C-alpha cells in the first residue's frame, strides 16, 4: 500500500512533471527503435515511420499509463465488495438470517451504548467540564459519606483556596410563584452569585448576579430561565426590571438564562435562580457555622493536580476542626469530578447491561461464524480453483473478508435502524431518576460506535472461516466432487466449539436475568410495613413570608384536614413530614435522658417523622404497645414521641422504652425532653429494598413544618380527588398551589423503576441469547446430519432402527449442551459476583436459578437437535447412498 500511496502522492503533486517524463520516456523508445532500424539498413524516413507504427498510438498508451496510476487497492476492495455482493445475492436465505442476527446484536448494543454514552461518558454541557469538581464535607465516624457546606465554611473555602479558580454553592428549593395566573411552585436554585462565572455562562438578556447581590441587605433579585420566561411569562419583552412575587415577596428580575444552561436542576428546563440571602429558609442559615446545606462546585485551576487540591482541602478541614471543634470536629473535605457526582450510582447497572448486550452480540457473531464455516466447506472447491489459478492466501482471505464486510455493512445499517427504534423504546422505559436521560440520542459518536462495532463483529465472525478456507488442502478439495464430505476435523471441532460457547454465554445471561428477576420479585413482594391502597398524596407548601409562625402552620393543617374529612369520596386524611419512600428521610441525633451522652463515634440517630394523629390509621401502621397521638398532644402539653420496633430493639435492649425520655436535636424542640408513649411496627421509609431502621414519630402539633404534606384515603379518581383538594385549599388561601397529587401505590411502583428497567432489559437480552443459541445449535446439528446423510443411510441399510439414529443425533446435541453448560456454570459463577450489588435477598450463586436455567438450556438444546434428528430418521437408504 505504501508505494501506491507514494505514487498517488506523486501523481497528485507532480502532475506536469510526470506528464513530461512519460512523454520523454516514450519518445526515447521510439527514437532508439528508429536508430536500431536505421542501423539494420532502412532509410531514415522508413526507420522512423516503422518505429512509430511498431509502438502504436503514443497518446492512447499515455492514457493507459495514467489509468494504472489510480489507487488500485481501493478498486480491488470495491471489486471484492461487488463480487461479495454477487455471491451473497445467490443465497438470500443465508443473507437474511445473517443480517438479521447481526442487526439484532448491533441494534441492541447501539441502543444501550447510547444510554451509557449519554449518562456516563458524554462530557457535561459546560465549558471545560473536566475541570469541574464537587467539593463536599464528610464525617466518616458517623457514616456521613458526603454532604453540603455551611455558608460560613464555604465563604472561607472560596476566599482562601489557591487551587480553585472559582467556586459556587447551590441548594434546590421550591418557592410559590403568584400573580401569574394560578399559583405555581417553581424550581428555585438558591445559588451564590459566582455560579454563572464558574460555568462561564452569559445571560440571554439582562445580567447575572454581582457579588453585591449576595450580601445581606441587598435588594431581592431573581434570574429566570428562558423556558420559564417563554412559558409562564409569555416571553414578556419587558420582564427585565419588572417585579415578580415569590412566596408572596417581591423580587426584581435582572436576567434571563438561555435554555441550554441547566444547573443545579439538570432535567428541568423551567427554573429560577436567587441568592441565598433572599431565600426564606436558607437566608436565616447564612450566619451559622453548623449545618450542611450548600452543595459546592469548584473549577480546578489548570495544571493543579488532584493531590495538590486534596492537600489544600485537608489543611483547611484541619483548621476548621481546630477553630470550630463543635461544628467541624471529625469532618473532612473531599472532592469528586462533577460528572461522577451527577452519575452517582447509575454506573454499575448500566455497565452490567452493556456487558450483557455485548454477550448477545458475541452469540450473534458465533452464529454467523458457524453459518460461514458451513458455507466455506461447500465452497472449498471454488477456493481451490482460485488458489490453483494463482490467488495468494492473503488474496483469498481478503476476498472472503470482503464478503463478510458486505454482511457487516448490511447488518450494521439494519442494526442502526433498529437502534433508532430501540432508543425511542428505551426512552419510554427509562426510569426518570436516571441522571441525564434527556441527553440520550443516536448522535455521531453513537453512530461511530455502531460502525466500529459492525467492523469488529465482521472481523470476529469472518476471520476464522476465511483462514480455515484459505488453509484448505488443494489436492483434497479438488479431488472431492462437491466438497460435501470434505470437511476437516478441525473445522467440525471449531463449529462444535462455537455452538457450545453459545450455550455457555446464553447460560451466563439467563442466570443473570433469573437472579435479577427473583430479586425484583422479592423487592416488590416485600411488605413495606404500611398499606396505601386507595391512599393518595398532595403537597401544599406555605409561603414562608406570609406563614412565618409555627402556629400558622398548625392552624392551616388542622383546617385543611377538617375540610377534607367532610368531602364526599374523601375519607380520612393526615399530614406527615416526611412521608415514607415519597419524600426521603430526616435523620436526627438524639440523647436518652438518664443515659450517658453518646460519643461522637457512636451517636444515636433515628429517622424523624412529624405526623398528625390520624397518620397511623391512614397508613395502616399497627400500634404494638402504649398509645398513639391524639388532638390533645399540642405544643404546651408534655412533649411526646412514638418510636418504631427497630428503635426500641436497638436503643432499649431488654428494657421497656415506654416512659423513657429523649432529647432530639430538632431546632424547635430547644432541648425539651420527649417522653416515649408508644411503640409502632417498623416501616420501610427509605426504599423498598432497604431494611427498616430506627424511627421516631412526633406530633405535628408539637413539631410543625411550613407546609402540609397530605395523605388522603379516597374512593375518587386521582384527578377528581385532586380537584376537590385544590378547591378546599383555595377556600383557605386562594394563593396556595397544590402540587404533586398522586396515588401512593404508583409512587411506590415508580420507586423501583430502576430495578424494573434493568430486570426487563436483561430478561430481553437473555431471551435473545436463548433464541440465538437455539438457532445456532439447530444449525450445527442440521448441518452435521446433512453431512452424514450417506453414513446414516448405510447404517439404516444395514439394519439400524430409526430410534438408534435419533439417539445418535440427540447424543451429539446432548454433548454440546453438556460442554456448554459446564462452561456456562463456571462463567456464571464468576460473572454473577459482578451483579451482587444489584441483588435483593438472593445470593449470586442461587442454586434454584442455576438449576432452572440449566434445565431450560438443556431442554432447548435437545429440542433444537430433535428436529434435525427426526429428519435423519426419515433418510431413505437408497437416496442416501446416491447422495453426493
Amino acid at each position: 500500500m505504501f508505494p501506491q500511496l507514494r505514487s498517488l502522492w506523486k501523481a497528485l503533486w507532480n502532475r506536469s512533471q510526470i506528464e513530461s517524463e512519460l512523454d520523454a520516456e516514450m519518445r526515447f523508445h521510439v527514437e532508439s527503435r528508429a536508430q536500431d532500424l536505421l542501423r539494420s539498413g532502412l532509410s531514415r524516413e522508413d526507420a522512423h515511420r516503422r518505429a512509430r507504427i511498431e509502438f502504436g498510438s503514443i497518446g492512447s498508451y499515455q492514457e493507459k499509463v495514467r489509468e494504472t496510476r489510480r489507487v488500485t487497492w481501493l478498486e480491488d476492495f470495491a471489486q471484492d465488495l461487488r463480487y461479495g455482493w454477487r455471491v451473497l445475492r445467490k443465497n438470500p436465505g443465508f443473507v437474511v438470517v445473517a443480517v438479521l442476527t447481526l442487526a439484532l446484536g448491533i441494534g441492541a448494543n447501539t441502543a444501550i451504548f447510547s444510554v451509557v454514552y449519554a449518562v456516563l461518558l458524554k462530557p457535561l454541557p459546560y465549558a471545560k467540564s473536566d475541570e469541574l469538581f464537587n467539593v463536599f464535607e464528610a464525617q466518616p465516624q458517623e457514616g456521613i459519606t458526603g454532604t453540603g457546606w455551611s455558608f460560613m465554611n464555604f465563604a472561607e473555602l472560596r476566599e482562601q483556596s489557591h487551587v480553585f479558580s472559582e467556586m459556587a454553592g447551590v441548594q434546590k428549593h421550591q418557592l410559590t410563584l403568584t400573580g401569574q395566573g394560578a399559583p405555581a411552585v417553581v424550581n428555585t436554585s438558591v445559588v451564590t452569585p459566582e455560579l454563572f462565572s464558574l460555568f462561564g455562562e452569559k445571560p440571554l438578556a439582562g445580567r447575572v448576579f454581582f457579588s453585591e447581590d449576595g450580601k445581606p441587605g441587598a435588594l431581592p433579585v431573581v434570574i429566570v430561565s428562558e423556558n420559564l420566561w417563554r412559558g409562564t411569562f409569555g416571553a414578556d419583552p419587558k420582564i427585565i426590571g419588572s417585579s415578580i412575587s415569590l412566596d408572596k415577596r417581591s423580587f426584581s428580575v435582572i436576567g434571563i438564562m438561555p435554555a441550554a444552561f441547566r444547573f443545579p436542576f439538570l432535567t428541568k428546563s423551567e427554573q429560577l435562580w436567587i441568592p441565598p440571602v433572599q431565600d426564606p429558609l436558607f437566608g436565616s442559615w447564612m450566619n451559622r457555622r453548623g449545618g450542611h446545606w450548600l452543595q459546592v462546585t469548584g473549577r480546578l485551576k489548570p495544571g493543579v493536580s488532584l493531590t495538590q487540591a486534596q492537600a489544600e482541602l485537608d489543611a483547611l478541614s484541619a483548621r476548621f476542626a481546630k477553630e470550630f471543634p463543635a461544628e467541624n470536629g471529625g469532618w473532612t473535605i473531599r472532592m469528586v469530578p462533577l460528572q461522577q457526582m451527577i452519575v452517582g450510582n447509575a454506573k454499575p447497572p448500566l455497565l452490567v447491561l452493556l456487558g450483557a448486550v455485548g454477550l448477545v452480540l458475541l452469540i450473534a457473531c458465533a452464529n454467523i461464524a458457524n453459518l460461514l464455516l458451513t458455507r466455506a466447506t461447500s465452497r472449498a472447491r471454488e477456493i481451490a480453483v482460485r488458489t490453483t489459478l494463482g490467488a495468494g492466501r492473503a488474496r483469498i482471505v481478503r476476498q472472503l473478508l470482503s464478503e463478510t464486510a458486505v454482511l457487516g455493512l448490511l447488518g450494521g445499517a439494519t442494526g442502526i435502524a433498529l437502534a433508532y427504534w430501540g432508543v425511542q423504546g428505551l426512552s419510554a422505559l427509562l426510569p426518570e431518576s436516571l441522571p441525564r436521560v434527556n441527553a440520550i440520542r443516536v448522535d455521531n459518536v453513537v453512530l461511530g460506535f455502531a460502525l466500529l462495532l459492525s467492523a469488529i463483529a465482521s472481523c470476529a465472525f469472518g476471520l476464522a472461516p476465511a483462514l480455515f478456507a484459505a488453509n484448505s488442502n488443494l489436492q483434497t478439495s479438488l479431488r472431492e466432487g462437491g466438497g460435501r464430505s470434505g470437511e476437516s476435523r478441525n473445522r467440525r471441532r471449531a463449529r462444535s466449539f462455537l455452538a457450545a460457547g453459545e450455550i455457555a454465554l446464553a447460560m451466563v445471561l439467563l442466570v443473570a436475568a433469573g437472579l435479577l428477576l427473583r430479586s425484583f420479585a422479592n423487592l416488590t413482594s416485600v411488605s413495606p410495613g404500611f398499606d396505601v391502597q386507595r391512599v393518595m398524596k398532595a403537597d401544599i407548601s406555605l409561603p414562608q413570608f406570609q406563614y412565618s409562625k409555627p402556629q400558622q402552620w398548625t392552624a392551616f393543617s388542622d383546617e385543611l384536614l377538617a375540610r377534607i374529612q367532610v368531602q364526599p369520596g374523601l375519607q380520612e386524611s393526615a399530614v406527615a413530614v416526611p412521608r415514607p419512600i415519597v419524600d426521603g428521610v430526616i435523620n436526627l441525633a438524639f440523647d436518652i435522658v438518664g443515659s450517658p451522652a453518646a460519643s461522637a463515634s457512636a451517636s444515636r440517630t433515628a429517622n424523624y417523622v412529624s405526623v398528625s394523629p390520624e397518620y397511623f390509621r391512614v397508613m395502616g401502621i399497627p400500634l404494638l404497645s402504649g398509645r398513639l397521638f391524639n388532638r390533645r398532644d399540642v405544643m404546651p402539653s408534655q412533649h411526646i414521641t412514638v418510636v418504631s420496633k427497630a428503635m426500641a430493639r436497638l436503643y432499649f435492649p431488654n428494657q421497656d422504652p415506654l416512659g423513657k425520655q429523649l432529647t432530639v436535636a430538632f431546632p424547635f424542640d430547644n432541648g425539651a425532653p420527649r417522653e416515649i408513649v408508644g411503640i409502632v411496627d417498623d416501616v420501610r421509609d427509605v426504599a423498598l429494598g432497604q431494611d427498616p431502621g430506627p424511627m421516631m414519630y412526633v406530633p405535628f402539633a408539637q413539631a410543625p413544618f411550613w407546609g402540609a404534606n397530605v395523605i388522603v384515603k379516597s374512593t375518587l379518581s386521582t384527578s377528581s380527588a385532586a380537584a376537590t383538594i385544590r378547591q378546599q385549599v383555595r377556600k383557605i388561601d386562594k394563593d396556595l398551589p397544590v402540587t404533586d397529587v398522586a396515588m401512593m401505590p404508583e409512587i411506590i411502583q415508580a420507586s423501583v423503576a430502576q430495578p424494573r428497567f434493568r430486570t426487563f432489559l436483561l430478561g430481553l437480552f437473555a431471551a435473545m441469547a436463548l433464541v440465538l443459541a437455539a438457532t445456532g445449535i439447530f444449525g450445527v446439528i442440521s448441518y452435521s446430519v446433512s453431512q452424514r446423510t450417506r453414513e446414516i443411510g448405510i447404517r439404516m441399510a444395514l439394519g439400524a432402527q430409526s430410534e438408534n439414529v435419533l439417539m445418535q443425533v440427540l447424543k451429539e446435541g446432548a454433548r454440546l449442551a453438556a460442554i456448554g453448560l459446564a462452561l456456562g456454570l463456571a462463567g456464571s459463577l464468576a460473572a454473577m459476583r459482578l451483579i451482587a450489588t444489584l441483588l435483593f435477598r438472593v445470593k449470586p450463586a442461587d442454586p434454584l436459578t442455576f438449576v432452572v436455567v440449566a434445565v431450560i438450556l438443556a431442554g432447548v438444546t435437545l429440542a433444537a437437535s430433535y428436529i434435525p434428528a427426526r429428519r435423519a430418521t426419515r433418510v431413505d437408504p437408497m437416496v442416501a447412498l446416491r447422495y453426493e
Partner: protein
Amino acid sequence: MPEQAQLLPGTLDLLILKAVSLGPLHGYGVLLRIEQITRGALLAEQGALYPALSRLEHQGLLASEWGTSDNNRRAKFYRLTTSGRRRLREETQSWNRLATAIGAALGAKPQEG
C-alpha cells in the same frame, strides 16, 4: 529469424519482471530483453509495454530512476524491488504448476477400456 509467436495474454507482467530481474533496464531495453529471452515473441504494439511497466511500478514491484543510456541520452531505468522479486518467484511457481497441469491434460491419452 525463428518463427514469431504472439505473447500469451497475462504473461507480459511476468516477462517484464523476469527481464528486469537480470539487471536494471530502460523501457526499450526491456523490450529487447523480452525478445531475446522469448526468442522473438512479439508484442502486438510496443507501446503496450508502458502501461504494464507503470502498473508494476505502482504496485511497488518495480522502482525507477532516470539515468543515461548507452547512446548518452536520458532514459528511465527500471529495477526489481524486493517485493517484485518475491512476486516473480511466486508467479513462476504458479505458472509452472498451471503449465504442468495443462501440459499433462493435453498430453493425456484416452484410457483403454
